[in-house]
Every structure is written in structure tokens, then in C-alpha cells.
């Protein structure tokens, strides 16, 4: 199994979804969600990839923030023509990584014009309140405690389908998803709200073995390797005792959804 070099990625035919601005894309089917996963740990990359594949996502897994930026074409100033073809629906990244932390990656993504609308989810093994707040303030969609569970990914996946449908609906309001912008909801709840198991609300994802893992059991996940540098930022100032739930964000959070900037709802 190849463990270095390359990126576990869509083939070019799959990435050729031309999303030219303004043009309505065809309705999404379940397999159309492309996730970029970033984690320096190989074990964690394999697990998150499996979780995402099971929930019918296509996955590109890279091992560092730099590789992620490279993949997105954000690593240099020249706007790549290929950007138009690159379709990323979600970026899920580890927080603690050598070189560039997940937080730094989040900031760079939110600073970019091409990808700032893409939801970014942060994963961390440490339950640090200040860290969580910082990420959410910077525009992170969600913050997951590791080890990430299938229920967490299913929840993300179902909210993602809803939101992408909204942005592709060309201002057409879907009754079940319409969210008034000025809602009288209370301010965003604490990240530690324990949400009920969301498995029943996820879309009827067909877990077809052949599509969830198109590669043989020892999947040739090729991953760019970057040298391991010294210790990463570790300001564990507000370390709370580990919470039993790893899903901080409530399932339905219209206030949070606003951040995604669906064109029709701004």
C-alpha cells in the first residue's frame, strides 16, 4: 500500500464538474460530495476517509496544510485555470499538525475568494474551549472531537447536502430548508450542546460496497508526505475534562448556516 507521494484523489473525469459562476449545476446526487481531508496521521486519514466514503462522499486525503493549499491551488498567487474545475464541498482538517495548524489552514481558506464559502470542519483530540471558540470565530463550520465517529460524519453529510442543494437551487426556496436570515433565535449555543444521535436524519445513503471503496481492501491511498517538523502549537490553556460527546454543534443551527453564504439567502 502506497503511503507516500501523491494524493488520494478523484480522477480528472470526476473532477470535471464545470461550475462556471452563475450557471445552475445539475441536481446533486448522493455521490457528488467531494471532501478534502487533512491530517498528518496516516491512521486518522484512513479512518476519516472510510467514514466519508461510507457516507457516500468522494475523498481526497492529504497529510498537511501545505498539501491542502497546493491541492486547492492556493499555494501561489497565480490563479490557476484549473480552479474552475475543482469542486470541493467540505474541508475537514485536524487541528494539531506540524508546519501549519488546522486553524492556520482555516484562515487561509477563509481569506481566499475561491474557497471561502466552503465549509471547514476542525477535528481535535483536545477539548480546549479557547481553541474551539477561536476556530468557530474564524468561520469554522464545526468542531469535532477525535476520535471522530460515524454519527458525526453522517450529521455533517446531511447538513452539507441540504446546504449545497440550497446554493444550487438558484434562489428557489425549498420549503423544508428555508431559513429566514433574520431569525429570532438566541445566539449560537455553546459548542458543548449534546446533540441527539442524528443517524435517522441522514439522507438515505446507499452504502454500496463497490462505490464506497472502489479500491481493493488494501486501498492504495497515496498521500503526499511532508517532513515531520518540531512540535506544534499547543496552548492547552482551557483544557476541560473530556466530554462524552464528540459532536459539539447542534444538528439544526440556522444561525450557523448563515456563514455558508448561500447566494439566495444573504
Amino acid at each position, binding site marked *: *500500500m502506497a503511503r507516500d507521494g501523491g494524493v488520494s484523489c478523484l480522477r480528472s473525469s470526476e473532477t470535471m464538474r464545470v461550475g462556471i459562476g452563475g450557471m445552475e449545476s445539475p441536481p446533486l446526487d448522493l455521490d457528488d460530495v467531494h471532501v478534502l481531508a487533512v491530517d*498528518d*496521521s*496516516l*491512521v*486518522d486519514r*484512513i*479512518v476519516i476517509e*472510510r*467514514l466519508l466514503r*461510507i457516507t457516500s462522499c468522494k475523498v481526497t486525503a492529504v497529510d498537511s496544510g501545505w498539501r491542502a493549499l497546493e491541492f486547492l491551488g492556493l499555494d501561489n498567487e497565480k490563479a490557476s485555470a484549473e480552479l474552475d474545475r475543482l469542486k470541493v464541498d467540505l474541508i475537514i482538517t485536524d487541528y*494539531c499538525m*506540524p508546519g501549519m495548524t488546522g486553524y492556520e489552514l482555516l484562515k487561509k481558506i477563509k481569506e481566499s475568494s475561491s474557497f471561502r464559502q466552503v465549509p471547514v470542519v476542525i477535528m481535535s*483530540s483536545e477539548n480546549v474551549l479557547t481553541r474551539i471558540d477561536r476556530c468557530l470565530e474564524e468561520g469554522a463550520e464545526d468542531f469535532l472531537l*477525535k*476520535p471522530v*465517529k*460515524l454519527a458525526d460524519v453522517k450529521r455533517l453529510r446531511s447538513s452539507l447536502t441540504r446546504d449545497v442543494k440550497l446554493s444550487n437551487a438558484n434562489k428557489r426556496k425549498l420549503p423544508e430548508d428555508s431559513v429566514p436570515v433574520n431569525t429570532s433565535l438566541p445566539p449560537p449555543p455553546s459548542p458543548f450542546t449534546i446533540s441527539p444521535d442524528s443517524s435517522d436524519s441522514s439522507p438515505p445513503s446507499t*452504502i*454500496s*460496497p*463497490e462505490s*464506497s*471503496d472502489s479500491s481493493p*481492501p*488494501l*486501498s492504495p491511498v497515496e498521500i503526499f508526505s511532508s517532513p515531520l517538523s*518540531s*512540535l*506544534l502549537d*499547543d496552548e492547552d490553556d482551557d483544557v476541560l475534562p473530556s466530554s462524552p460527546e464528540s459532536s459539539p454543534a447542534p444538528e439544526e443551527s440556522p444561525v450557523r448556516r448563515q456563514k455558508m453564504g448561500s447566494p439566495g439567502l444573504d
Partner: protein
Amino acid sequence: MDAHVAQLQMQYRNYILSLYQQGFLDDQFTELKSLQDDGSPDFVAEVLSLFFDDCVKLVGNMARALDQTGTVDFCQVGANVHQLKGSSSSVGAKRVKGLCINFKELCEAKNYEGCVRCLQQVDVEYKTLKAKLQDMFNLEKQIVQAGGIVPQVDIN
């Protein structure tokens, strides 16, 4: 034939339960098992194999870092412990993870002897787990070869 399969299946169940009861595995391992299916029948074995590779690499790094008597870079040791803690947590290797938590504190305290001792414990622990899981996989294989299916073991 059936009796043999049934006996193997019971053996397997008891073995798995004992691994949980003795604290070798936690519910994250259960979670991993639930991600395995006929389309990815070797998923757990694959992840564990990567985990044990990680153990070898990280323990080696830590041993080297601790070997620099007088100029031990505890940050470097700590970084490796952090990684091991992460991957052990991701596969449900409960004892290894627990040791890593202690180990981290020892690094922060720059406790050299403590670190050396803890590293030895980590070394023993991951190797023990590896052997136990190997036995578990062997049992699975035996069951399948005897014509049976590997039972889902309900931990609770």
C-alpha cells in the same frame, strides 16, 4: 462441523469480551469494526497494521530522543507521544492511550527516568496488544475456514 464452529465462535466471543474487560480495547475499536463490511472486509486489520507501524516508528523516535543523555529534547519526545496518543485513540487501543497520557505529563515535567520507564511500558503494551489482536484475527480465520461466520460481539 457445526459443533466445532459453535465452539470457535464462543471462544471468539469470550476472547473479544476479555479484551474489552481487561482494558485493552475501548468503544472506538467497536466503532472501527462497525465500519467494516463485505466491501471492505479487511478494514480493521488494515488500520491496526498501520497503527502498529506507527508504534514502531514513534517508539523508535522516542528512544532515540531519550538516548541523548544530557541534551534530551523533551518537546520532541512529547510530539511523538502526542502522535501515538492520537493514533491509539483512533483505533481504540485503550491501554496504550492511557500510557501516552501519563507519558505526556512526564515529558512536560522533563522527568527523564519517568519517561524512560514509560517508554518501556509503551513498548511492552503495544506489543502485547498486537499479539492479542493477532490471536483474535487467527480465531476469525479459523471460524471462516470451518465454514462459520464471525459473530458480532455485543460489548454491552
